[in-house]
C-alpha cells in the first residue's frame, strides 16, 4: 500500500495519494451535512416525490400509454364533484375561523396565568392524541339518531321526537356536526402554536402598551396579535392544507351523505379507478399550493420590519 510522501519539489504533483489525514478530515467535515441529509432525502424521494410523479402520470395517461384529459373531464362532470368542492370549502371557511378564534382565546387564557391554567393546556390538547377516525366516531356517538344528544333532548323533554342530525336531508345540521367535530379535533394544534407564539412576547411590550394607555382590547389588537402573526401564519397554512384533506371525520359522521374532495379520491380508488383518484389527489395538491402561496403573500412580514 502506498504511503503519502513528498517528492521534495513543492510544485511537482506528489507521486502517491495526496490524501493526508488532514485533508481527509476536512473533506469529511464538508460532506457530513449531506451525508446526514441523505436518509431523509431518500425517504422523501421514495415516499413523496415518486408517488407524486406517478399520480401526475396516472391522471393524464391511459393504461395503454396514451396522453389524455378524459380523467379530468370525468371528474368535473361527476355528479358529486361540485358538491365535494363546495362541502370542502364550506367546512374550511366555517371551521378554520372558529378554530382560530377558540385557539387564540384559549391561548390567552393559558397565558393569563390563572390558577390551574397549566391544567387547561393538558386538558385542551387531549384531542391532539385522538386519531381522525376516532374523533369522528366520538361525535357520531353524540349526533346519531340514538346518540347522546337526542337522548338528552328527549329525557329533558326539549325534543320528544328524535331528530336525524346526520341525515342528508338535514344538510345544515350535518354540516354543523362535521364542523363541530373538526373544530374539536383540530383546534388544539392551533392553540399549541399560538401559546408558543404568546410565550415569546416579552412582558415589556405589554407593559409598555399598558403604560401608554392601551386598554385590554387595544393591547390584544395592537400588540399581542401583530406580535404572534408569524405563529398564526404557520398555523393557518398548516390547518388549511390539512383541512383540504378532511376525510375520516366526514366519513365517520356522514358516510356518503357529504362528499368531500378526499372522500371522492378514496371512493374512486375503492372503485378500482386509480386514474380518477389521482386526478382528485392532484386537485387537492393544486388547491393547497395556491392557498399557501396566497397566505404567504398576504401575511408576509415586510423585509424592513425584519431588519433587512
Amino acid at each position, binding site marked *: 500500500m502506498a504511503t503519502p510522501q513528498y517528492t521534495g519539489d513543492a510544485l511537482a504533483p506528489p507521486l502517491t495519494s495526496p490524501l493526508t489525514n488532514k485533508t481527509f478530515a476536512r473533506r469529511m467535515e464538508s460532506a457530513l451535512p449531506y451525508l446526514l441529509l441523505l436518509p431523509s432525502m431518500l425517504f422523501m424521494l421514495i415516499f413523496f416525490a415518486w408517488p407524486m410523479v406517478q399520480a401526475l402520470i396516472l391522471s393524464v395517461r391511459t393504461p395503454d400509454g396514451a396522453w389524455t384529459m378524459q380523467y379530468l373531464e370525468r371528474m368535473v362532470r361527476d355528479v358529486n364533484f361540485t358538491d365535494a368542492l363546495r362541502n370542502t370549502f364550506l367546512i374550511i371557511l366555517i371551521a378554520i375561523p372558529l378554530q382560530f378564534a377558540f385557539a387564540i382565546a384559549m391561548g390567552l387564557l393559558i397565558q393569563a396565568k390563572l390558577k390551574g391554567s397549566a391544567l387547561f393546556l393538558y386538558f385542551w390538547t387531549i384531542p391532539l392524541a385522538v386519531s381522525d377516525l376516532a374523533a369522528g366516531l366520538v361525535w357520531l356517538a353524540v349526533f346519531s339518531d340514538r346518540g347522546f344528544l337526542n337522548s338528552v333532548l328527549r329525557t329533558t323533554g326539549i325534543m320528544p321526537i328524535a331528530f336525524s342530525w346526520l341525515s342528508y336531508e338535514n344538510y345544515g345540521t350535518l354540516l354543523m356536526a362535521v364542523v363541530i367535530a373538526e373544530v374539536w379535533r383540530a383546534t388544539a394544534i392551533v392553540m399549541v402554536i399560538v401559546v408558543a407564539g404568546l410565550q415569546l412576547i416579552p412582558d415589556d411590550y405589554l407593559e409598555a402598551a399598558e403604560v*401608554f*394607555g392601551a386598554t385590554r382590547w387595544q393591547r390584544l389588537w395592537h400588540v399581542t396579535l401583530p406580535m404572534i402573526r408569524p405563529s398564526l401564519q404557520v398555523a393557518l397554512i398548516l390547518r388549511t392544507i390539512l383541512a383540504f384533506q378532511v376525510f375520516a371525520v366526514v366519513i365517520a359522521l356522514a358516510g356518503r351523505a357529504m362528499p368531500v374532495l378526499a372522500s371522492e379520491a378514496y371512493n374512486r380508488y375503492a372503485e378500482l379507478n386509480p386514474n380518477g383518484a389521482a386526478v382528485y389527489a392532484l386537485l387537492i395538491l393544486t388547491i393547497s399550493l395556491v392557498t399557501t402561496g396566497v397566505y404567504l403573500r398576504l401575511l408576509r412580514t415586510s423585509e424592513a420590519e425584519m431588519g433587512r
Partner: protein
Amino acid sequence: MSEIRIQGVWKYFSKGKVAALKDVSLTVQDREFMVLLGPSGCGKTTLLRCIAGLEYPERGRIFIGGRDVTDEPPRKRKIAMVFQSYAVFPHLTVFENIAFGLRMQKRPNAEVKQRVNNAAGMMRIENFLERYPAQLSGGQRQRVAVARGLVMEPQVLLMDEPLSNLDALLRLQARAELKRLLQQVQTTTVYVTHDQIEALSMGDRIAVMENGAIVQVDAPTQVYDYPGSLFVGGFIGTPPMNFLRGTVKSMNGAFALNLGGQPIRAALPANVQAGQDLLMGIRAENIEASAQRSPDAVPARVLVVEPLGSHLLLTVQVGETPIKVQTRMDFNIAPDQTIYLRLEPKQVRWFDPETGVRYDASGSTELK
C-alpha cells in the same frame, strides 16, 4: 403641579415571603429629576414600577400631582415610561411607535403628526420615522423609546436604566444629551440606575436604596461628600470611600484618633469619650501621599500601583486595612515601599462602627 408623594409603601414578592420595599416614603418635587440609586436587588425598579402602576403595593399610598393613584391602572396615571429594554414595538414604524400613546387616546391625525414630529425632532430621529426598529441601532432605539415618552407630555416621566444597554462611549454621550433634554422639558422625572456616576451627573437629588429601603436622599454632591452611612460611602464613588477603624484617645486635653499608633488630629464628633472606637471615612482624592516622613502622617505600605492616565491609583495598607489613595501620575513609587499619608482634615467623616451611621458635626447620628 406634578409632585410625586410616596407614603409608607410596602411591597412583597413570593407570596409575602420577600419584602421588596419596606416602608418607603419619598417626595419628588414638581419638575425635579430624582435618581433612585442602588445595587441590583435593592428594590429601586420595584419602586419605579409601583409609581407606574405595573406593581401594586400591599401597603402605603402613592400620590401624583396631589391625586391618590394607588389603585389606578397605569393608563390613568398620566405617566410615561422608558423601559430598560426600550420595549419599542418591532411591528410598528418609528412614527407609529412614538404615536402609540396618542393613537390609544384616538387623537386626531393632524395633532398626532405634529406632536410626533416635534418629539422626533427633539430626539433627532426625524429622518428615521418610516423605518422599523430592526433597522435601527441600539442608540437610535433608545431615542425612540424616549421620544415615545416625551410625546405624551406626561405629568411624570419614569426611566428604568435607559442607558444601561448602550456601549460605554455612547452611554457617555447619551447621558449628557438626556440631561440637556430633561432640563429643557422640565418634566418631573424618576430615573432608576445602578450606575453611581450616572446618578451623580444627572440627578437633582439622589435617593440611595439598600435592601428595599431608602437610606439617604440628598443632592449628588451631598451624597458624595457626606454619605449617611457606611453603605452609601462604600457604594458611591470610584473608588469608594476608605474606612479606617481607630480608638479615641485623650491628648493634651483634646481628643485624637489613634490609628495603629499614629494619632490623627481631625475634628472628631462631639461627645466622644476616650477609649471609644470610631470608623473614619475618607476618599482617595483627599489623601496626600508623600515619600517623606512627617509628624502627622500615617505610614502605609504600597500593595498595588495602577496608572489610570489622569492619576495614579495606589492600594496601600494602613495597619491591617487596605485603602485606596489617589496621587499624581509622576509620583515615583513601587510596590512594597513605605509612603506617608496626610489626611485632609476637613474631608474626614466619622461613622459609628456598630451601626455604620455617620456622625454629623454636632455629634448626633443622622440617617435619612
